[in-house]
């Protein structure tokens, strides 16, 4: 089939470099590298913050997607475009933006300071930075799905007396599961790989804010091969999440 040529090319483009990385790793050194406290701390922090950011993106971005898809308000097109901004903003600049807003001298940061909350250099800052860059993925993915699916079934639910909330839970969400699944995966993946905004806004301290990508970058400064090995750790985590979590959401479809 004519499709196979570009499909295989695309796959090669994605898979070959990653496989190439594998060949660079010295298996003898692997255990020591991966089981170092620095690596384990970073891994743990990455997984936790990644999950929390994904959850936060869902809780905040889900409703936003719904509003964007369903509301007939004017000016929504502009709002939608704004949601995409974190996607194009270089992450470092995104981090700066967060810092300017929520840092000690930022308008919101000063406000928070008065109630004793300081975000920079905390794990919360990591979550915030990840959410900032990753949430648009969820919003865009869900909104697209919400637009194409569901409308007619939601009408049917209303004729059966179901209010918006019940309709949403029992009709909209189940019909949305495949899109939700893939959007969540994208969001989690982006949060997991987030680097620039995190280091700018949250800094990099082992155990508190140094996630795996930060640790990898850090290691790369002195030992590229060790950094590559640590990247593979990230890859394995991502694969696990995807292979374990995704099929449930995506393949249990209609």
């Amino acid at each position: 089939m004519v499709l196979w040529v570009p499909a295989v090319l695309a796959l090669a483009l994605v898979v070959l470099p990653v496989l190439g990385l594998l060949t660079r790793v010295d298996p003898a050194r692997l255990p020591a590298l991966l089981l170092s406290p620095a690596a384990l701390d970073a891994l743990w922090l990455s997984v936790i913050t990644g999950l929390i950011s994904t959850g936060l993106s869902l809780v905040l971005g889900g409703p936003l997607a719904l509003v964007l898809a369903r509301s007939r308000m004017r000016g929504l097109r502009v709002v939608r475009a704004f949601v995409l901004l974190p996607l194009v903003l270089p992450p470092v600049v995104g981090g700066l933006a967060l810092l300017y807003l929520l840092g000690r001298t930022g308008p919101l940061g000063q406000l928070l300071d008065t109630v004793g909350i300081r975000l920079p250099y905390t794990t919360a800052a990591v979550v915030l930075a990840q959410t900032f860059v990753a949430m648009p993925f969820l919003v865009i993915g869900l909104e697209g799905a919400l637009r194409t699916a569901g409308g007619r079934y939601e009408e049917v639910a209303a004729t059966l007396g179901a209010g918006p909330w019940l309709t949403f839970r029992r009709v909209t969400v189940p019909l949305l599961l495949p899109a939700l699944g893939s959007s969540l995966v994208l969001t989690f993946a982006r949060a997991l790989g987030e680097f620039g905004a995190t280091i700018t806004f949250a800094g990099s301290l082992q155990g508190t804010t140094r996630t795996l990508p930060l640790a990898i970058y850090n290691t790369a400064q002195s030992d590229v091969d060790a950094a590559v090995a640590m990247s593979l750790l990230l890859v394995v985590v991502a694969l696990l999440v995807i292979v374990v979590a995704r099929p449930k959401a995506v393949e249990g479809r209609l």
Partner: protein
Amino acid sequence: GQAGQQSQPQRTVTVLAAASLTESFDELGTRFTQQHPDVRVQFDYQGSSTLAEQIKQGRAADVFASADTKNMDKVRDLVGQPETFATNQLTIVVPPGNPAHIVSLADLAAPGRTVVVCAPQVPCGSATQKVAQASGVQLTPASEENDVKSVLQKVVAGEADAGLVYVTDAKAAGAQAQAVDFPEAQQAVNTYPIATIGAAPEKQLAAEFMAFVRGPVGREVLGQHGFGTP
């Protein structure tokens, strides 16, 4: 390569330089083209370790200027004889007005101060470790940044009460930050080596540029940006 507009450059010399050399080398490039109107100087500024890795992977460029000897050593087989062309040393930077009243290295260890330094893996971080050890100061930073510019950024943004950066960085920050020199900095002077790359397409020009950097003009420009002379 602003020189490109004046005459048709026939030759290009590609310089791989550490990110901390951005301003000074940009200026050196302009000066060099003034002397050689037919030459265009192309700069690629990145972290020294990334550049070293790229050279190892066969990158064809003419000159490599590293921010430390460690990364130059990684590519020792692939470059000509490295020469030191500048030195640099640490200084404390504080936000304008020095709100936390920091006057010495020991002040950084005082409780309640937010201090940002470089991670030990990068050159400025290893220098930081050295001075801390030498002076017996126990630093508890809020963050160990991956490069010196990030440290400076945090101080400039007011997110840190103080940070340890190179003198050149403090100078580049101008009025946005204030430098507080400290004597222990002498314990860790960082040297910048430069070398021509073995596979250089423009061997002749590479050598010329290297000499130019190490020559009087180079010294003058580098000095203006805060670098010390080796």
